[in-house]
Every structure is written in C-alpha cells, then in structure tokens.
C-alpha cells in the first residue's frame, strides 16, 4: 500500500505525465519503486481475475464439446469447430438466435432513446432547480430503486394487460424506459459537476430555463448522457426477468431469455433434453454474440464515460 511520503505525492501528479518520464528526484525516492510495482501487480492480478473467465469463454466457442472437457481449458480449439458450432447454433430453430439478437437491439434501443429524453432533464431539474415536491420526488425515486423486482412483476403484468399491451413490443420497452437509476446518476452528475454560478450567469444573460438547460447544461452533460445511456442500454440488454414474464412468444424473446432457453436444452444442465440438444460450446458462442454489442458500445462510450467532465470543459 502507498505510504505517506512526498515521493508518492508526485505519483498522483496531474494526468498526462508518463510514469516513465524523468521527474526531478524527490528526497526519498526509494519508496517510489516498490509502491508502483505493488500497484501494478495488484492491477494486473485483478485484470487476470476479470479477463481469464472471459478468455475461457471466447476459446470455448472454438472447441468441440469433447475438447471443452478433455483439453487444456485455455487452449484454442479449431476454426473448423467454430464453424461447426456456428452452423449448429444458427440451425437451432431456423436462426432464432439472430431473431433474438434483433429483438434485444430493438427493445434496448427504443428504451434507450426514451430513457435519455426522460432521465437527463429530470436529473437536471432535481439537481439544479427548485420546485415543489423536489425532495419527495428524490425520495420516491430512491424507494422505487430498491424495490425488489420479483414483487413488481405481477402488478406490472396486470397493469400492462389492463392497457392491452401484453405481447406487444411496448410491454417491455415502456417498463425498460423507466430508469430511476439513470435519473439518480444524472442528478448526482449535475449536482456535483455543474457549477451553479454558470447557470446563474446564463439566467442573468436572459436565457429561459429551457434555454439554460439546452445551451448551458446539455452541452456539458455528455458524460452524464453517456453514463445514463450506457447503463440503461446494458441494464436492458441483460435484463432477464421482465421479458421472461411479459413476453409469451419465443420469437419475441430477447437474447438473454433466449440464452436461458438454450441453457435448458444442454443435456449437462437438463438431462431431459433429447437428441436435438445444444452443446456447451454452441452455448458459449451464443453467449459471445450476446455480449458483443455491449462490449463494442463500451469501447466507444468509454471516452465519454470518464471524460474530464466539467473540469476539462471550463479550463481548455
């Protein structure tokens, strides 16, 4: 663990200074190396912890079921096996896997758009404007956030049935769009990262309240939009329970529930599965397809997610 020395303080110096860049030698330089090495070791160790299982999953998709059990866990199977797994997977109920992916994309994207339009202004208003019921709204949001899902499913089902939406795309998109976490995230962002003076200045300049939001807050809110959008997308993409209960038809299922169906057809997990069973490497391949969009979006969104937020915006 780092120790309290001026040398270490150097290491916390502003970003953009390379570790390797020579710096004026501080008096007790000796502490510096071991501490950094320890940090690096810890970071690498955790990187292994997070990635080895994923690497295993990637490799699993290139194996036959037999290789999966008998081969080295971290060995590459063969391209041929990968092709065979793909053929078997896409043969499962006539390409239903692609349909599931398409469904997931549709539900998540629609919900993402609605969530952003709803959550960002709400978080902004909760953080930076005064209105009657603000505190109540915050408290209610918090309560709903920690409400157990399993309870809400039956009432939600009845409610959606009452408005005649069962079986429609909106029956999952609308509940997906309700994203109190996102409102909270936006609220925290705006309340910690946006100086009130900036808004006050804009108001003095004669901006309307909407104008302040549109021209001052929103341009600075890219990280919040990215954060909320990203977590909303991932949350909806990986949501299992709600579509599981709300969608009756297998060709409406999103990929997560579809994976559950595939899992139930792997003989090792369900001995009653018969001759048309799914093999574990095919399941691994399906899982990879299911996570790929999330990873790609993360790669693109990461820049915004950790952007220097307002600090960078006001200084440069």
């Amino acid at each position, binding site marked *: 663990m780092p120790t309290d020395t001026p040398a270490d303080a150097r290491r916390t110096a502003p970003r953009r200074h390379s570790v390797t860049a020579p710096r004026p030698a501080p008096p007790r330089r000796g502490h510096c190396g071991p501490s950094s090495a320890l940090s690096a070791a810890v970071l690498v160790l955790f990187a292994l912890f997070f990635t080895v299982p994923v690497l295993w999953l990637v490799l699993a998709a290139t194996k036959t079921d037999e290789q999966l059990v008998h081969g080295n866990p971290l060995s590459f199977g063969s391209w041929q096996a990968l092709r065979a797994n793909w053929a078997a997977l896409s043969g499962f109920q006539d390409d239903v896997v692609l349909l599931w992916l398409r469904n997931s994309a549709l539900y998540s994207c629609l919900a993402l758009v609605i969530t952003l339009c709803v959550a960002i202004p709400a978080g902004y208003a909760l953080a930076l404007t005064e209105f009657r019921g603000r505190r109540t709204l915050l408290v209610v949001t918090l309560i709903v956030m920690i409400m157990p899902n*399993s309870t809400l499913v039956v009432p939600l089902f009845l409610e959606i049935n009452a408005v005649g939406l069962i079986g429609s795309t909106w029956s999952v998109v609308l509940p997906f769009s309700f994203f109190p976490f996102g409102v909270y995230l936006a609220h925290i962002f705006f309340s910690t990262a946006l100086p009130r003076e900036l808004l006050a200045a804009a108001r003095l300049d004669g901006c309307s309240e909407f104008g302040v939001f549109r021209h001052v807050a929103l341009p600075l809110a890219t990280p919040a939009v990215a954060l909320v959008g990203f977590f909303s997308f991932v949350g909806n993409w990986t949501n299992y329970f709600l579509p599981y209960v709300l969608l009756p038809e297998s060709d409406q299922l999103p990929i997560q529930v579809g994976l559950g169906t595939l899992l139930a057809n792997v003989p090792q997990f369900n001995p009653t599965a018969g001759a048309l069973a799914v093999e574990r490497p095919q399941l691994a391949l399906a899982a990879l397809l299911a996570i790929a969009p999330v990873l790609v979006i993360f790669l693109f969104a990461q820049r915004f997610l950790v952007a220097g937020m307002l600090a960078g915006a006001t200084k440069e």
Partner: protein
Amino acid sequence: MASGRVRWPGRAGHGFVTPYVVLLIAFGVVPTGYAIYFAFTDAGDTFVGLSNFLAAANDFRFVTAVGHVAIYLICWLPSLVVLVVALALTLHRVTVRSASRALRFLYYVPGALAGTTGVLVWLFMLDPAVSPAAFLLHAFGFDTFGQVVAPEHLPILFTVIAFWTGAGGWMVVMYGALNNISPDLIEAAKIDGAGAWRTARHVQIPLLRKWIVYMVILAFAGGTQLFVEPQLLSQASVGVAGRDYSLNQLSYDFAFQNNNVNTAAAVSVELLLVGLVVAGLFVARSRFFDAD
C-alpha cells in the same frame, strides 16, 4: 433568494420532470402500491393485517434464507466498497493513458456477462476438472465441483461472481468521479506534503462520498435481492443451492409455485423496509440530499 427566481424555475422544474413522473407513477408507484396492497390482503381482497407477514416468517425456509442473505451481504458489501474504491484510486494513478483505458476496459468486460452467461462461465471456473484456475482450487483442497459449491462456500462464491460482473461498472463510475476532482485540489494537497494515501483519504474519498453512498445503497438493495445467481446455480449444477436459498427466491416461489402472491408480496415489502432503513441511515449520515 428573490421571489421571482423561485417562481420561474419552479415551473420549469416541473416541466423537466413531468415525463419522468409519468413513468415513475406508471411503472414505479402503481406497481409498488399494488404490491403493498397485496401484502396486507388475502386472495379474496380482504384486509388481513399482518397475517401474510406471519405466514412468511413462519415458513420453515424463511429464517435460513434471511441467514443466507445476511452472510452474503457481510461478504459482499465491504469487499465491493473497499476493492472498488481502492482499485479506482490505484487505476487513477496510472499515468499512461492507454494502459489505464485498457485496464478499465478489461475490468469492465465481465459486466456484459451479467445473468445467465456469467453463471454459466462460473460453473466451469469453479469445476476443478475443467477450470483454468484448477491449480488454485486444488491448492484450497477442492477436487470436485461438489466440494467447491458446498453450502458454506456459497456466500463467498456469490460474492466473487457478483464482484466479477458488477465491479467494473462501478470502477468506471468512480474513475469518472475521480477525474471530476479538480487537479488543483490534488496539487494543493501535494504541496501540503500529503502522500497518495493521505490525498486519497482526506481529499479524494470525501469527494467521492455521494458516489460511494449511491453504490452502497444500490449494492445493498441488490444484495438483499439476490436471485439470479442461486437460481441459475441451482438449475445448472447439482442443485446444492436450493431454489429457496435467498429471500427473493422464496418470494418468487410463494408467488408462482405456491400461487400465493400475497405472502410473496409480504416478503418483498419486508425487503423493501430493510432497504429503506439502511438507505435512510446512509442518506442521513452522509447528507446525501444536500444540494451543496
């Protein structure tokens, strides 16, 4: 504050939150109210007071499930908070941008594997016969999958799985929040002679307060609602973690296996109350709602 300024933004504030309030009522308040209504009535819609709560508490699975969830929370919360904050701070000290970005991506990757996929992967990771970490499992003295998933290990295993899938996302949030701290503050601390440890303790962590509280509340609520991991583990393994391992599973079983929505709702309302009390404590202690 001038009265004109309060009135004007007041109306605008309502305008900004209206769409959210509509969704909140439709998919938050109404179902929650409905659930609370369920918890205090019977199947014939008659008010029955606390009898659903008594029925739940008297079920032979209830006390064990409470125990399971409590032990899991004891493992899960401290490890999440300590490790996420520590790793985010360490990561923030990495000055090579590309390395930092790559590490954050690697840490995040399992976050995409929530639910079914994650448990599937761990079924293999924890099986000494096929795991890449078999040497570790053998070092702990485990030779078969059955020994690894022995009931007394489950809280730790669920903690590992939950940390694996969830920590990366929180690290991204913490890292973003750390970036948000003005470099001047850090520089000032440095000039005052503060080391990395003291800078973290006296400058960075206090400024992360809101985010940490937010994480604790959500992690606590998520922890009490433990469902997917034991459910899938019970389905896809030798079934050692029963279908009634956690309170949420018990509630689900009440609702759908025993066709008793009311008792299920009672369990959920209890979970909600516990979540509220804990959230309330944290919010009050950390002055979470202060608009400073």
